[in-house]
């Protein structure tokens, strides 16, 4: 809304003017100044709303006794500008006008109506509701909440069958052992990972673990010798992980991951439920600590990935994973010596909802 520091010329009516007289004046003028005699006198807001409702396209200026705290009321009722009283400080006017990021009431030419925003991105609203209701709940309850048949979500689990994967898969086995579990068989895994995938699947009774492989044609074209990771690790991840995953997950609107806040700084603000790009992402273990994970694995006597004992706390493909030294973070062994911290499957489609 425009802040006018000079007295404006034009037809000037008190907000106490009867509605029909204001409407008549509007018909005859392409600009109207409505003068508030007291800031408590809210008739001016309704007069502006009536004129705008009738389709008046002229300029509406508020004048007289109005407070900066009424800036957004004026704007949303249809005023274009306010005539400031002499010497008034425009700073609070600007500040108060922008206090609210959205509104429950429609206003002409305004797209910040809460209803509309809610339903343009229904997953965001669902994620927010689930976070509010279940954000503090135990991981298993949180899974049950999102897998409630009433929500009609089509969900799949993404698992690396890595060092901590057994926790999420164990929870899945308790809630819905038939849920599809997507394992990216990149062709570059440690043989221990492949053995562990078989062992854990059998032990937990998971009935729908899917090995997702890169498309052979794409692979032979982009990485015929299987050493793309040396020259272009991002491209390697794209072809062996990101693209196959996108194909495997087509048709699913909900993805369940084992990501946790403590794993790296990019994940520090991770919410249990996130929405982006038409997909709901569920991170039941978001708030878990390393100790909690360790305790769970031990208490439930879950089989460990064979490489953990050898100093690999985070395990990906063999070329890009190394053991970490004491004092390093768990994921420091991933793409060590590079800027890279994520393979990409958790970045685009799975970016946290704003």
């Amino acid at each position, binding site marked *: 809304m425009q802040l006018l520091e000079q007295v404006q010329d034009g037809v000037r009516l008190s907000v106490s003017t009867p*509605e029909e007289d204001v409407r008549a004046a509007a018909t005859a003028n392409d600009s109207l100044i409505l003068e508030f005699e007291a*800031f*408590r*006198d*809210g*008739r001016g*807001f*309704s*007069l502006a*709303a*009536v004129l705008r*409702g*009738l389709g008046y396209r002229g300029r509406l200026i508020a004048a007289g006794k109005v*407070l900066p*705290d*009424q800036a*957004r*009321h*004026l*704007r*949303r*009722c249809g005023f274009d500008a306010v005539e400031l009283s002499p010497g008034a*400080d425009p700073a*609070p006017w600007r*500040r*108060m006008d922008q*206090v*609210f*990021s*959205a*509104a*429950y*009431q*429609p*206003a*002409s030419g305004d797209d910040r109506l*809460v*209803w509309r*925003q*809610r*339903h343009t991105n*229904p997953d*965001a*609203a669902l994620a*927010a*509701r689930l976070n*509010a*209701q279940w954000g503090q709940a135990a991981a298993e309850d949180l899974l049950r909440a999102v897998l409630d048949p009433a929500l009609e979500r089509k969900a799949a689990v993404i698992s690396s069958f890595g060092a901590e994967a057994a926790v999420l898969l164990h929870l899945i086995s308790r809630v819905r052992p038939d849920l599809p579990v997507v394992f990216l068989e990149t062709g570059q895994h440690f043989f221990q990972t492949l053995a562990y995938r078989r062992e854990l699947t059998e032990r937990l009774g998971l009935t729908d673990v899917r090995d997702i492989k890169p498309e052979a044609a794409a692979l032979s074209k982009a990485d015929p010798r299987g050493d793309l990771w040396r020259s272009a690790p991002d491209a390697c991840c794209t072809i062996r992980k990101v693209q196959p995953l996108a194909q495997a997950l087509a048709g699913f609107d909900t993805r369940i991951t084992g990501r946790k806040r403590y794993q790296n700084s990019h994940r520090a603000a991770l919410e249990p439920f996130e929405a982006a790009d038409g997909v709901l992402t569920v991170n039941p273990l978001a708030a878990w600590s390393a100790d909690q994970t360790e305790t769970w694995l031990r208490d439930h006597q879950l089989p460990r990935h064979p490489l953990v004992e050898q100093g690999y706390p985070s395990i990906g493909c063999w070329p890009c994973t190394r053991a970490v030294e004491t004092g390093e973070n768990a994921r420091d062994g991933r793409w060590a010596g590079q800027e890279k911290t994520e393979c990409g499957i958790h970045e685009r489609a799975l970016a946290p909802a704003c």
Partner: protein
Amino acid sequence: MYRYDEFDAALVRERIAEFSDQVDRRSSGALTEDEFKPLRLMNGVYLQLHAYMLRVAVPYGVISSRQMRRLAHVARTYDKGYGHFTTRTNIQFNWPALQDLPAILSDLAEVEMHAIQTSGNCIRNVTTDVFAGVAADEIEDPRPWCEIVRQWSTIHPEFSFLPRKFKIAIVGAPKDRAAVRTHDVGLQIVRGEDGQTAFRVFVGGGQGRLPHIAQEIAPAVPGQSLLAYLTAILRAYNLLGRRDNIHKARIKILVAAIGIDAFRDEVERQFAILRQEDLRIPDEELARIQAYFTPPPFADLPATSPAYDAARRLNPEFARFTRSNLREHKQAGYGAVIVSLKPIGGVPGDITAAQMDVVADLAARFSFHEVRASYEQNLVLPHVRLEDVHAVWSRLREAGLATANADLATDIIACPGLDYCSLANARSIPVAQALSHQLADAALLEKLGPVRINISGCINACGHHHVGHIGVLGVDRKGEEYYQITVGGSPDEQAALGEIVGRSLPAEEVAPAIARALDRYLEIRNDGELFIDTVRRLGADPFRTAIYELTDAAA
């Protein structure tokens, strides 16, 4: 119950930032007290006799265990360890400092609470039936509609500077348990001709100096058009309501002045020119909000509980409590327990922080984490298994919350009066306490049956004395407290204003006079006739005689 999504949460946070800015500008002198006052009022902040008062909204009276615990925290941390529930189902804190208010509001925002529009000349907290979602006679649960109206009315750009305050109540049953006809707008859910949800709309009710019972303006406004219709009513009122005299500024005066038919014409004219498509509630939004109010996961129980029946047989005190404070639930095997905030000789509506914690714990264990605040200034645990009622009662009893008097004569509705309120002419609480002691005998109470006594400390009528079966109004006679008594008021679907029986009485004569009126009722009632029905049958005269009997003899 409803939970905030990111938008609701953001708005409440932004409102706190706005209010903090206003507090800072008031402190620096950039805002005068005259300018600041309406802004703080719209955030529930009054300046009362002894301190600021913060009125926290409990939208349509629904409150979770977590929220109740947070209210206890606020009472302990920023106040003197208690709060006061009002007839608009809000809670008031009497002693917060201005500088603490942003912190208090932040603490509340964390549990999805706020104080927005609990005062000021704007649309106030929407109220409803305390037994919404519980009562068997309900056509439809009114709470989703309350939430829709709550959101639509929150920080409304057009209706934040009305001529005067504006109160809306919604009920979903033919039985009116929310006094809708005493509201500026009262809404009653009905079935429209197409079988869809519609609203019977009443307008122009209100209490205060010039009380009015609302009149019907529309028999069945379709649910989809509710917000457009409300907008038309508010717009007509905002443009035409009086602003020259605060006592004549409510919509009731406008409706009475031009007549309901002329006002209806005005509303329909506004309805016809406003852009209704913008205000039509999208189906998916209605469905989204309704989803929050699906019944909790009730157990499949038989209609009776042997353990409950046995406890009633063995313990007469418990049996009495269940007769007065347990209400039927539409789900077999469950009941709704009324938590009395009316201990004998206590302050009506007051609750200590420790008691709030007790109620929160009981709700968490026995009532799906849910508490309701009632029009009568009590609390309700809405979904208690019959077999758990005894355990609930025992704990309430230890905490002083199990007075067996719901809807009985000592279940007195009273405003804070001159002990706290800067508008009051006389004290309300001491009169309520004297009456409570006078009528304390449990057997007598039960014999009297349902009697509603309301006490207001001034003509603003926050104690709703006009619609009490017996009403007491404090007046100032040359610096002395006197009390005027009315008989025959009623807030329900047969809403009526009480009749003033005669000259006002000094404080010490009020309780004995009312006790005599109730004795007279016992003498003249027909079998099974309720107090209010006896008044309706015989008029105020027999009670007038009883009230002035001794005082006349003495004079």
